[in-house]
């Protein structure tokens, strides 16, 4: 039997206590590094197997499907696993110096341990084919991320973590209620089995109220976790006050995994083509468009640049959910692809924020004056990340926007296309404020101080991301292929 699916979760989960046992920050970092790289390798192997063999299924403890917990991996999970473990593998080399500076020495082993637990949780959500197991992993990742955010160096990090805790718990509870209702309907927790029972007992066609309620709870709960527009309030604070590494990690993975869950429940459980999915598309349309426009406008007025990027994340999540609400093949693939591309660009941008705060101490707009000259590599990386965010051709951001616009055109939603493009223009404005300050506002003579370029261990992962942003803008065949197949699978039902 192929043990790759369980390895994906078990490696970070087992490495987490090791970090605390050894209680040395260097060893803890090394263990975490090894664990994340191993996870990344596993995710690559899984992806390779999914491509060659087809979907993987793994029964934990040998218990077969409806009774035991089954891990089930198809194109969609494999893609999300790749995003999550790949980002963690890239963040870890970056983490050492940044964490050393931002978190006091005694807490560092705990920090790494929590990071691993969070990673295990996110990967667990993605591999599992069991609804309740998914909830358990969701709590695992959420609880650890509350603690991680609370470790930020400013005291406001604690309020931010608390705010996230309240909102996140409400969301998780809603999800749990939804899963419970599904269980009461079908007597099963296995996602495939739930879907089978719903169809076999003809619950789906009969506008069953319990089913509607279950999905109302699940959708709202997940919308909280993925920060869909009016439910995004926890996100800006959490992202701006968390330690740099946590922001990079969560921004590029956590919301993506929540979107993955939404896709799983909407498509794999209910199946496509049902009246339910059609109405959900309409429900998501308005918040998505509102996110794209309103969050971008709010981002323009932020002076804390990390916060600005956080609002931009809310807007970008709008693009992903917009892809979902288009609910045709093109839109769904665009949404799935944008999970990947957004991880690339936001990961990169938050990495540059980490480097700036490493050298300058904070990331207010005024801190960026003259940085174009003093931190040339970091700021060049910021410019490229910004271009990707705007969706300039030959960057990754362009590919997903193109696909999204194409899908909207298929549906004939011209007004939506206009809003997508307005969103791009707003991105130009908020990115350009920073670029203009960094390159064209020199420091006054009096405050001239020596700020050097960020250390190499920060620059190398950052520039790997730069290369990825450009490479996947020029040749996007691999992610596009994955996204399209995943979308086709979802629409075809499981």
């Amino acid at each position, binding site marked *: 039997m192929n043990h790759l699916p369980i390895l994906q979760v078990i490696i970070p989960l087992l490495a987490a206590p090791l970090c605390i046992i050894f209680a040395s920050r260097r060893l803890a970092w090394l263990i975490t590094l090894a664990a994340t790289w191993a996870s990344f390798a596993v995710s690559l192997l899984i992806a390779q197997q999914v491509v060659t063999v087809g979907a993987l299924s793994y029964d934990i403890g040998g218990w077969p499907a409806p009774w035991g917990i089954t891990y089930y991996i198809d194109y969609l999970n494999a893609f999300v696993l790749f995003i999550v473990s790949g980002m963690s593998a890239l963040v870890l080399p970056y983490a050492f110096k940044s964490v050393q500076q931002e978190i006091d020495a005694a807490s560092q082993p705990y920090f790494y341990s929590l990071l691993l637990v969070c990673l295990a949780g996110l990967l667990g959500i993605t591999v599992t084919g069991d609804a309740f197991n998914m909830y358990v992993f969701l709590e695992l990742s959420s609880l650890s991320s509350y603690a991680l955010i609370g470790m930020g160096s400013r005291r406001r990090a604690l309020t931010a973590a608390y705010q996230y805790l309240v909102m996140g718990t409400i969301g998780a509870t809603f999800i749990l209620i939804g899963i419970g209702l599904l269980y009461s309907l079908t007597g099963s927790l296995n996602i495939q089995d739930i879907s089978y029972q719903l169809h076999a007992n003809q619950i789906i066609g009969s506008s069953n109220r319990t089913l509607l309620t279950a999905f109302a709870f699940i959708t709202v709960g997940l919308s909280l976790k993925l920060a869909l527009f009016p439910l995004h309030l926890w996100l800006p604070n959490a992202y701006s006050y968390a330690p740099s590494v946590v922001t990079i990690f969560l921004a590029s993975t956590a919301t993506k995994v929540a979107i993955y869950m939404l896709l799983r429940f909407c498509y794999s459980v209910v199946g496509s083509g049902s009246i339910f999915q059609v109405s959900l598309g309409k429900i998501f349309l308005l918040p998505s468009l509102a996110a794209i426009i309103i969050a971008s406008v709010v981002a323009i007025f932020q002076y804390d640049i990390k916060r600005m990027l956080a609002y931009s994340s809310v807007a970008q999540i709008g693009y992903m959910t917009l892809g979902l609400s288009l609910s045709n093949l093109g839109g769904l693939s665009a949404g799935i692809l944008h999970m990947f591309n957004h991880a690339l660009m936001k990961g990169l941008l938050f990495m540059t924020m980490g480097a700036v705060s490493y050298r300058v101490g904070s990331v207010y707009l005024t801190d960026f004056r003259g940085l174009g000259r003093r931190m040339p590599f970091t700021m060049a990386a910021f410019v490229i990340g910004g271009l990707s965010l705007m969706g300039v051709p030959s960057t990754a951001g362009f590919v997903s926007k193109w696909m999204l616009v*194409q899908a909207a*055109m298929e549906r004939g939603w011209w007004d939506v296309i206009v809003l997508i493009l307005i969103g791009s223009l707003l991105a130009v404005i908020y990115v350009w404020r920073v670029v*203009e300050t960094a390159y*064209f506002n*020199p420091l006054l003579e009096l405050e001239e101080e020596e700020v050097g370029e960020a250390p190499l261990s920060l620059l190398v992962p950052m520039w790997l991301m730069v290369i990825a942003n450009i490479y996947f803008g*020029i040749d*996007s*065949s691999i992610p596009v292929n994955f996204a399209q197949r995943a979308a086709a699978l979802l629409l075809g039902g499981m």
Partner: protein
Amino acid sequence: MSTTVLLELCILIPACGALFIAASSRFPNLREGVTITTALGLFCVVAALHLRPDALHLAPIVVAQPLPGLPFILALEPLGLLFASIASLLWLITSLYTIGYMRGNNESHQTRLYICFAIALASTMGIALAGNLITLFVFYELLTLSTYPLVAHKQDHDAISGGRVYLGILISTSVGLLLPAIIWVWHLTGSTTFTAGGLLAKDLSPVLVTVLLLMFAYGIGKAALMPIHRWLPEAMVAPTPVSALLHAVAVVKAGVFCMVKVVLYIFGADLLLNTGSNMVLIYIAGFTIVTASIIALRQDNLKRRLAYSTISQLSYITLAVAMLTPQSITGAAFHIASHAFGKITLFFAAGAIYTAAHKTRVSELNGIGRRMPLTMLAFTVASLSMIGLPPAAGFISKWNIFQGAMSSDNLLIVAVFMCSTLLNTSYLLPIVYAAFFKKEVQHLHHDHGEAPWPMVVALCATALLTLVLFFWPQIPLHLAAQLSGVGR
């Protein structure tokens, strides 16, 4: 070396040049040496393309494939070769001029300027060689972004706000109109490749064609059709070499170049003539020609006057190609060349006057011709070219465009050209007259002669080229004539 490699080198040489310039930032002499070498190398490569008989019949090169059915393609066609030749030749001359200007005025951030110049040229080459709309769009945006630091070079309040207007208008028109237009074309045809005779189907409704044409016309903000011309005068806050090369040659010519390509290769003459949509473009361009000339009359700042003159001259090209007669298309293509040489000379002269005499206003130029005879002589030649008088290159393009206007039997167009020729004369010749024949106001002048020699050499060279192009117009005319067959 195969022709394919030569095409790729056209973009790679200036791109790599930018890296070398960055690397040699500590040694100004080496840095300038690298700039000149790069420019020379690029010019040689483009010249070599002229000698290749197979260059214009090359299979398109697929550079990358970001999405299925959406490749990045490089391909060479007559107009692209013409544009690449002009840009590379004038970059070489401008590099020489820039060195004189930057050193003469002790400008700061010189390395950034040279780097951005090289990247802008790489983008210009990319535009010239683009084989489909999406490749064109990539380089078009890259050109906007790489020229922004040049416009905002001085970093003072005016420069930064000028830069904002520049970037704001160019990016918002291209993302807001050009990109949707490209997507629309892709949606209609499943391709964005430039196709001789037009890519779009011949049975589209006139309304759709007109809307799409307008989206392209205003989406290509660099062609400066009114009312989105504002970025061009704003960009005049840039140092003069930047204004000269970018806002007389690379950027604005990229704009009209895109316009010509879109009209001929995407719409095609038949589609536009059958639906009558080209009349819309003709009216907009005609309006721009006359209005911009009138505004130019009222400008006292020399560079702003030249900027408005550029706006009006660009619309000559748009109008000429929109007429869609063979002669006018030839004239449009030739005007890209002749206006480039003429206008760059005028800007060079303006920069030389600023460097030697620190004057920026037309009203201060009385008698300056006696102190700077070569500069003002070059200015005179270039003015003749702008007006369209022999023996300057502008005559040939105007001759062709006029013939096209006559054969299309549209008296309004003829009237626009008559009117604008008069206006051109009245905003340029008074400067020449004042420079040579009016008495200089003593207290305004400190004692100065010509500008530093690299600048004088450069501006004499371009003025000379304007004359050469009148007597030996074969190469550009030949390429331009090839183009006129393409539209059908």
